[in-house]
């Protein structure tokens, strides 16, 4: 179909449009009210000083200028990118490894599937509570087990060098969902391909890199992009962890602000410092960052993603 600049709709088209409109109307209304308008409104707010009460006063580019000079902004961005750069690739590898192992036609595969998948649907705040106890240097299981093999105790949640690593580990509890998607992709690989490769004498490693991996690259791409989008919004575990060390209404963000992630800092600016203008500017920068990252991954993927030519 060629999209003509001016639609000349046939009678049928017009009737179908009229029929479809009431069905999709909720989405259109919701999209405008809860997505499109807020995005545009926050662009406006980002050029104002606004405390949430009274009127927003014009502020030009000051919010954006302030951002460039705000060390906490840069730290929060750095923390977030550090977390994302670790959690997302590790997550993809963990999911693929789990899927490969589950693809072995074992009788008890349903058990493994449940064991990997269930943690991924449990509330993140509850998982964070569990990690507080699990990673405690005194009564946690992890340091106890490390102690058994002679590794000295690590203060996971109290040492700025380990707090983000702890959240990267926590994020891996979510690998079960993507693992099932990879498993479905593995099962969709035609068996004849492996058979042909075997006849040509290709070993299992070669078969994995020449057949399996290329055929699941579209899933890897989706997982990378979606994981990155989720990664840059990391908030809940940091908020839950930091909440415990807080005295009053002010939220600390882990030792040396090591858990001050981008959205956490945005949240603090908006709801703790009542600086809605600055928080809106941060929101827009996050929007741009996520778009740029998505497109960068997409562009990079052209070098390795394999689309079936059908």
């Amino acid at each position: 179909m060629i999209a003509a600049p001016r639609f000349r709709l046939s009678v049928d088209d017009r009737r179908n449009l009229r029929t479809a409109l009431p069905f999709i109307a909720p989405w259109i209304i919701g999209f405008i009210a809860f997505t499109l308008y807020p995005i545009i409104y926050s662009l406006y707010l980002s050029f104002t000083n606004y405390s949430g009460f009274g009127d927003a006063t014009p502020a030009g580019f000051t919010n954006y200028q302030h951002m460039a000079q705000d060390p906490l902004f840069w730290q929060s961005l750095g923390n977030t990118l550090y977390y994302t750069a670790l959690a997302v690739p590790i997550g993809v590898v963990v999911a693929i490894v789990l899927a490969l192992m589950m693809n072995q036609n074992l009788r008890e595969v349903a058990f493994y599937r449940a064991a990997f998948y269930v943690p991924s649907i449990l509330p993140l705040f509850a998982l964070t509570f569990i990690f507080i106890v699990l990673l405690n240097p005194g009564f946690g299981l992890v340091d106890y087990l490390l102690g058994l093999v002679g590794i000295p105790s690590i203060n996971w949640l109290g040492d700025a060098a380990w707090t983000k690593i702890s959240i990267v580990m926590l994020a891996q509890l979510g690998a079960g969902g993507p693992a099932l998607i990879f498993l479905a992709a593995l099962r969709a690989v035609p068996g004849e391909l492996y058979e042909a490769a075997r006849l040509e004498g290709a070993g299992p490693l070669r078969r994995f890199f020449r057949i399996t991996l290329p055929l699941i690259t579209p899933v890897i791409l989706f997982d990378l992009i979606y994981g990155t989008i989720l990664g840059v919004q990391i908030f809940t575990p940091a908020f839950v962890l930091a909440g415990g060390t807080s005295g009053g209404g002010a939220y600390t963000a882990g030792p040396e602000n090591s858990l001050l992630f981008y959205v956490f800092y945005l949240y603090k600016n908006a709801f703790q410092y009542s600086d809605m203008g600055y928080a809106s500017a941060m929101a827009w920068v996050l929007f741009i960052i996520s778009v740029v990252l998505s497109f960068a991954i997409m562009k990079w993927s052209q070098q390795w993603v394999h689309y079936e030519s059908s």
Partner: protein
Amino acid sequence: MTVAREELHRTQAEAAEFKLSPSREPGFRIPQTLLARIGLIIAAAMFLLPFYWMANSALKGTIELTSIPPTLWPHVPEWSNFVTAVTIIPFGTFLTNSVILTVGVTVGAAISNPLIAYGFSRIRWPGRDFVFGIVMASIFLPFPVLIVALFDIFAKLQWVDTFLPIIVPAFFGNPFFIFLMRQYFLGLPMEISEQARIDGANEFQVFLFVIMPLAKPAIAVVIIFAAVQAWGEFLTPLLFLQDETKYPLSIGLQFYRQSHDVSYNLLMAASTLIVIPIIALFLVFQRFFIQGVTAGSLKG
């Protein structure tokens, strides 16, 4: 040419064996299965041990909890921890709020998503695929980008500190669920709709009386995922609820822990009570969960 006969036979025999599972990678059969099994058992232990530790810590008394090295099972199980956990925290209030929010969001999802997906699948209208592209693109918009503006909008509507900002948007569809329902609707033959239209049904009647009854499995998937998601929701109640009596479990527990120094065994007891409904839901509706996840994979 010089492929050993034996090798060929073995391959053919294996190929025959694999008929039931064509994707299984042949070769290195025994060691590979064994390796996979060992790997899976280790991985499963790593995924399950946090929950064992949760239950273990939930059942310990305060003194046993802080003993070093930690006891690997509760030597003196304190079942009363569960009673204490739900009484020293206003657990009942938080639970009621969580249930109201979960039911509200789930009802909204169950009504809106089939309706919207129907418009994107069973009726062909100009521009449909383009608009559906926008629906899909919105998946990639980080929600926190919207929170400042949404808060201000809801504040002006005087919706802040009510359940409305959390429940109402659910009645306007969710891109994942729209995608999922649309996939399902596209899989139903068009002829059944045609037949109903010939019989004089209008489009809404076709949707409600012909297609919806056939779509029960897909609606079940939407309901289950919406409920799981709403039960664990953290950011929106944190933003939009202020009065402690309106907090769901996610926020209530967090703030209570912060201000009352709840001990860790009680926190683990409360966490156990929060994860159990989800685990139970999975065990009962396992099939729907797996279908839901793999339906999503079609996109990938």
